[in-house]
């Protein structure tokens, strides 16, 4: 028998077969019925074949490459675990950053996995479908590897034991949760702008630098290794987001105003979510990487500015909200940590008053604002704590209907006045932290009237009966263990004890 050996296909050819050769137009059912979701948002696509994925990743290559990376990651995590790597972090206060990160991010990765699976099914173009599928796999892998990384901390420290249970219940988790809920209930093109473009492309460095450099600066080998492992995926995600936006803009000029509106919305929503990251950078990392303000200047003002310059030729403008978000770089980290400090009875992490060195670092990094607006708060609260009257705000927070933050942000141009906007819609009053959140509401009021806001729910009695004690049980927060001051906490004591045991014979 004659055996004819064909030349092996090149990567480019294999990718072409995967993304074009395996696709077909349906004939038993009309395409519009098989793919009903990629047209209703108003985006017009004339030629799906114009989609170009610069990575041209095929399934076999994906599998081989990711398996290799994960083998390395788990080897390091194993070593981290066996050598008590958790004791190498700079200071046990770092664990508050870890708690915030690992309570939120794995579940957001999981939502991203779901969202890209959905988008992959909804697009009729084979190129974006395959790209979404790959990203969907990345996201669920990230969720899994993060949970494995977190488990090495959860074994020893408090506040991480119920992260899945707490995600839909814990009041501050409604901020990132509502962001992803908003995105995943949009159509596939808006999803791509929300997550693929705004989050992964415009804002990703603001997320990555504090987490991964923060981990490296603070001796957290586990999180750092996870970060490096995910980094090559993130590069692909950023490219997908940018490719998608260019594809939409090149396909039809009528797509421009729709895309611009989404960019405006998701840049604002993204910058709001990142206040959590700002707070971690300025307050929760015992060894700071850089200030939030510096990070914003490099990664949003300079890099983001260059990106928007690049998109100018399509008619895209810098979102209006950028001016306010930039003004807020001087404020949000301070406003948010002050909020967690005073509502610390209701958090799964510890807070503290920054020590004198840290206050000086903040003064130096924020010469325009810290000494005038924020240092005196910490000095007042330090005085009160010394007199045995640790400041707690027993008033529960009013929340913004859209971003779901407590209304802690101040008026543009006036850092001494809390910002408030309101409107009536169908006979109901709605309140907002900013003009931009109000505009988002106005554009899709029927969506946001349904917002599940933790504080009104507490009063409705749906969260453990209506009392704060009942709420703690319902949310699975152990008072006196998970919450309140770092000083005197079990985490602080155990870390000191174990570190002592690891470095002495006593």
């Amino acid at each position, binding site marked *: 028998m004659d055996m004819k050996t064909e030349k092996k296909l090149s990567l480019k050819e294999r990718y072409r077969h995967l993304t074009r050769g395996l696709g077909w137009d349906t004939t038993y059912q009309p395409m519009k019925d098989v793919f009903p979701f990629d047209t209703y948002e108003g985006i017009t696509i004339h030629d799906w074949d114009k989609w170009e994925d610069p990575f041209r990743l095929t399934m076999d290559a994906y599998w081989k490459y990711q398996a290799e990376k994960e083998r390395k990651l788990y080897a390091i995590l194993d070593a981290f675990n066996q050598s008590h790597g958790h004791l190498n972090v700079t200071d046990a206060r770092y664990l508050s950053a870890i708690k915030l990160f690992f309570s939120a991010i794995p579940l957001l990765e999981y939502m991203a996995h779901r969202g890209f699976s959905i988008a992959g099914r909804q697009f009729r173009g084979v190129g974006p479908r395959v790209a979404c599928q790959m990203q969907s796999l990345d996201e669920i892998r990230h969720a899994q590897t993060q949970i494995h990384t977190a488990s090495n901390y959860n074994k020893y420290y408090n506040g991480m034991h119920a992260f899945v249970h707490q995600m839909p219940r814990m009041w501050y988790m409604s901020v990132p949760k509502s962001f992803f809920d908003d995105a995943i209930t949009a159509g596939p093109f808006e999803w791509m702008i929300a997550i693929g473009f705004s989050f992964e492309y415009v804002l990703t460095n603001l997320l990555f630098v504090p987490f991964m450099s923060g981990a490296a600066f603070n001796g957290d080998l586990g999180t750092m290794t996870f970060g490096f492992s995910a980094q090559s995926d993130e590069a692909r995600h950023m490219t997908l987001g940018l490719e998608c936006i260019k594809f939409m803009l090149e396909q039809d000029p009528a797509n421009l105003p729709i895309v611009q509106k989404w960019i405006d919305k998701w840049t604002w929503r993204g910058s709001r979510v990142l206040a959590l990251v700002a707070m971690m950078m300025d307050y929760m990392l015992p060894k700071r990487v850089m200030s939030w303000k510096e990070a914003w200047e490099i990664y949003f003002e300079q890099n983001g500015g260059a990106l928007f310059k690049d998109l100018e030729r399509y008619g895209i403008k810098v979102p209006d909200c950028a001016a306010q978000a930039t003004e807020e770089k001087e404020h949000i980290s301070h406003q948010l940590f002050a909020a967690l400090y005073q509502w610390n009875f209701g958090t799964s992490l510890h807070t503290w008053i920054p020590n004198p060195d840290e206050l000086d670092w903040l003064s130096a990094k924020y010469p325009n604002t810290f000494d005038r607006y924020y240092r005196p708060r910490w000095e007042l609260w330090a005085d009160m704590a010394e007199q045995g009257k640790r400041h707690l705000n027993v008033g529960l927070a009013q929340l913004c209907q859209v971003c779901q933050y407590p209304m802690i942000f101040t008026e543009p141009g006036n850092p*001494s006045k809390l910002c408030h906007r309101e409107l009536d819609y169908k006979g*109901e009053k709605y*309140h907002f932290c900013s003009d931009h959140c109000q505009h988002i509401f106005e554009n899709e009021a029927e*969506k946001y009237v349904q917002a599940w806001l933790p504080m009104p729910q507490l*009063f409705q009695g749906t969260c453990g009966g209506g009392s704060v004690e009942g709420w703690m049980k319902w949310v699975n927060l152990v008072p006196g263990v998970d919450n309140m001051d770092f000083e005197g906490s079990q985490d602080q004591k155990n870390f000191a004890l174990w570190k002592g045991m690891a470095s002495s014979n006593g």
Partner: protein
Amino acid sequence: MSVKAVKEYLGAPRDVVSNFHGNQLLYVCWEGHLMYASPSIFMVSPTMKLEDFLIQMVGPVFKDHPEASKLDWRKATWEKGDKPWAPKLDQTVAENGLVHKEYLRFQTPGLNGYKGLGI
């Protein structure tokens, strides 16, 4: 603008007054006192006298502020929904025309926060 959707899209508002068991929500902000990170949310009976609401529910939230002892509800000036408003302290919440989720902001002339810094 309506939500773009494949069919008619209407949302059910989640915080309508009928969900609060005969009570209603009010939001209160002490302007220029940023020791309190945000305005506070209160659930109150519409038949409660406004002064009782302030003394029994709002006052305790601010009790640890250095200026709390000087806080005189009769001297406060008020805004409702960001517009000037004159409350009648001896009348009820409902008689004052305060509807569900009303936003109230009060100023205390002469009390400018910790060290006069708006804190």
